[in-house]
């Protein structure tokens, strides 16, 4: 089960990519775990998570084709 993960702002300094496709994660917690294994510096980063453009503040199930965004604190304006 694949989801697309997209990165923004200072997170891209760690991932060096704007997006990756991750397979086999049933929920956000397991996805975050997988990402930290791939990008260890993420463990110390502060960020918000959005699934399909909606902010999520707790663990929740993922489904095929979801887009998960990792967003550091906003600094527009």
């Amino acid at each position: 089960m694949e989801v697309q993960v997209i990165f923004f702002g200072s997170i891209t300094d760690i991932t060096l990519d704007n997006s990756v496709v991750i397979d086999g994660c049933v929920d956000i917690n397991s996805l975050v775990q997988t990402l930290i294994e791939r990008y260890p510096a993420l463990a110390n980063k502060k960020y918000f998570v959005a699934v399909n453009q909606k902010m999520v503040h707790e663990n929740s199930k993922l489904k095929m084709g979801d887009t998960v965004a990792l967003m550091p604190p906003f600094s527009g304006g």
Partner: protein
Amino acid sequence: MSNKKTASIFVSGPIPAQKIADDIQKHSAKTNIGAHSIFLGQIRADEINNTKVIAIEYTAYEEMVMEKMAEIREAFFAKYALTCMHIYHSLGRVAVGEICLFVFTSSAHRRDAIDACNEMVETIKKELPIWGKEICTDESTVWKQNN
């Protein structure tokens, strides 16, 4: 001018002063307007560790900004008696002295336009997924932080 408009707020590069004049001029036909309130964000030549900011490069999660802005617009038109509200934010590189944010609210009486404009500036900084990277004279970069 519609209060359900969900067009993009993004402008590529700086927002020209001429655009601000043109937008003001367009509102002269709306004779129920008595007050306009405008906020402009301008790139400041801040000093960071012995070097100076020369530009900010903005990126955004554009689709999410559009969804979020549609919600925010609806909430603002419910809360304030606005005739219209226009918001523009730069994407990409904006040099020191140039304009990166333009918030423009209009109403019959001044309180609505003024209060909505003030609250919108705070809302944009707090709720829209936009990031600024400060670029310095020595080519170093620093991710901007809002307060």
